[in-house]
């Protein structure tokens, strides 16, 4: 089975690295990390992810803006985006889970929830 390609955009490199090592350890995923949000489009164009996990609050660029850029890019517009955020309570996350078609996952995320989310958005 062809591994799912996951792009993780988050300024916390420790988090992206550990997530990448863990996901790739399963053998089911290919993971690319972006720690500077401004480089998201550039990386995504060559990596061609099946799904993008996007941090909301980043120093260089806001997650929302990154999402807008992705949706504006003809090559990437169809790629599903899931936000990862630290400032949303589970309640809020639940209410806003379908706003603008962008699901949320509240940090800290479990590997299992990532796996389920990928499975939900990228059927084999």
């Amino acid at each position, binding site marked *: 089975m062809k591994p799912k390609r996951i792009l993780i955009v988050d300024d*916390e490199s420790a988090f992206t690295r550990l997530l990448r090592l863990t996901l790739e350890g399963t053998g089911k995923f290919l993971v690319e990390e972006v720690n500077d949000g401004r480089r998201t489009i550039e990386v995504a164009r060559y990596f061609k992810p099946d799904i993008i996990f996007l941090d909301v609050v980043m120093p260089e660029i806001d997650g929302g803006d990154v999402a807008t850029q992705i949706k504006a890019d003809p090559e990437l517009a169809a790629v599903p985006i899931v936000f990862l955020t630290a400032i949303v309570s589970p309640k809020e996350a639940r*209410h806003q889970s379908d706003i603008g078609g962008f699901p949320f996952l509240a940090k800290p995320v479990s590997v299992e929830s990532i796996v389920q989310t990928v499975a939900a958005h990228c059927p084999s």
Partner: protein
Amino acid sequence: MTKPADSVTVPPKVQTVRLLLIEPEGSGSGLRDLIDSLAVHGFRIVHEFPSVSAAAAALDREAADLVLADIGEAGVRELDQLAAQPALNSYVPFIVIDHAPREDIARRALQAGAQDYLVKSKLTPPRIERAMRWSLERARIERDLKRESDLFHALLDYVPDAIYFKDRHGRFLHASASVARRLRVDSPADVIGKTDFHFYTPEVAEATFVDEQRVIETARPLIGKMERIEMPDGTFRWSSTTKLPLRNRHGRIIGTCGITRDVTDLKKLEGELAAERNMLRGLIDNLPDPIYVKDVHGRYVLDNAAHSRFLGVENQSDVIGKTVFDFFEPEFAEQANAVDEAVLRTGESRMNQEEQTSSAGKPTWLVTSKVPLRNEAGEITGLVCINRNVTEERNAKNALLAANSNLTAALADVQRAHQELGAVQLQLIEAEKSKSIGRLAAGVAHEVKNPLAIISMGVEFLSGKYGSDPTTASVLKELSDAVSRADTVIKGLLDFSPPRQVELQPQDLNAIIRSALALVRGEFRGDLHRVELDLDDIPTVLADRGKVSQVFVNLFTNAIQAMDGGGTISVRTRVAQITGVGANVGGERSEVFQAGDRVVVVEVADTGPGIPPELLARVFEPFFTTKPTGKGTGLGMSVVKSIMNLQRGTVRIANRDGGGAVVTLTFKAHDPT
């Protein structure tokens, strides 16, 4: 036969006349013989003296009715001695007898008071008898006249009333001593021949003159005329004057006689009495308390203005002679009358009795004092009663008591309110604290959650690599639990974070309701909870989808929690039109709508126990909750309220007739134009 009794001649009884005879020695006894011959006529000599001086003692004693004095040779000397005898002039008549007729002696004798002058040589018994009888008669008349004159003069001299006689021209003919005193002259003689004009002011004299002329002209008396006169000494005196016409013996009116009494003191006394009476009357009339006097039969004999008013009578005189039964209900009248009778019977006063009655139809409280009234002999002749109307005082007292208890109640309310305020203040402090925590949490969460995410991810990574070793696995498990615990704390804090700005977009409420229902689906228990949707075709509303979604999630969550043992949530949407401010679907914030506005109304009802009515008003207070501790934060409905306010909508909560609570949300319909 004897002679009939009526033929017996009874000699008339002869009055004995006691004679004192003075006849010098040697002048013979002619006189004695003459008198003796008159014995049958009652003349009897009781004393006989040779000279006047010898007879003096007997004369002093008035020991005779008539004195016959033969002045003999001594003549004039004896006559002078006779004249000097005080008794003779005044009381005992005397006749002088001379030896020869001497004109000068005769004149002197008569001047000295002798009744007659006789010449001894010409005396005969009839002549001397006649002379003696005339003398006695004349003396008697003189005596009588003198007595009357004396009485008259005593009257004039000693009666304090002024008595006076005036001629037709107002000149004094005669006046009493008191007239002289009144007119400030020494003796009555000083006024004779003068008129009032001589003594009084022209005004007074003229008035008097006019009065007297009227008496003379009309021949009718003026009786008891009261007048205030300015006296010659300048003082004013009150007089009572009576004037009568004065007639001569032919009946012709020749003047006036009058008697004037000074009544100044009487008048003064009368004035004082009147003043006292007026003062008392004025006092009684002007006292604000009703006063009345009753006789022994209970009839009013005196009342004052306040009492008449109290009885509702306009005229004080309408009260006099009536009884309490004429003015009051029989019950009260009997009661009052019984008290009166007790006072009259026992003579004991009844002081300050409180009684209830009605005056002019209004309930009235009186404090009454009743005192028996006694005459000079000490007998009870009636009673005096003074009432005091204390209704206002009583009412004021009662009002004060009521006000006092109201105040006490108000104070209790204030204290309660104060306590509630204290509790609310604590809640507010708690709320403020919570908000601060929320803001802090929002700021901190990001910084904390990212490291937590790293740790969490690291733990998972290590678990995948070294999880087969049991000891390592247990350490990693503890790490993972610690991360979860920290995360739970952060999540809890984030629930307090303040609402963000709203983004109002046209939204389909039906769709939001459906998705919110889907979100809480996990909390339903399929066997117990049912959902009934009655969603009309409704226009869009301008709303923040996330916020409104939160509203429904909160409402559904509350409904499910209210129906622990199962029940039905009914959700109904419809379009309505505002018909009037405050009186319709809008509820408490209906001022946000105007009459004629199209609105979308959403009702969320449950079949739970409802909300106790006294708590309904507090449902939207922050931290208010009916749920047990730990089951709710008490923020849900306050969040609903604040969100609805942000949407320019309203929210209202009520209990349903059939049980359970119903929350009504009203949104303004979106008009795309």
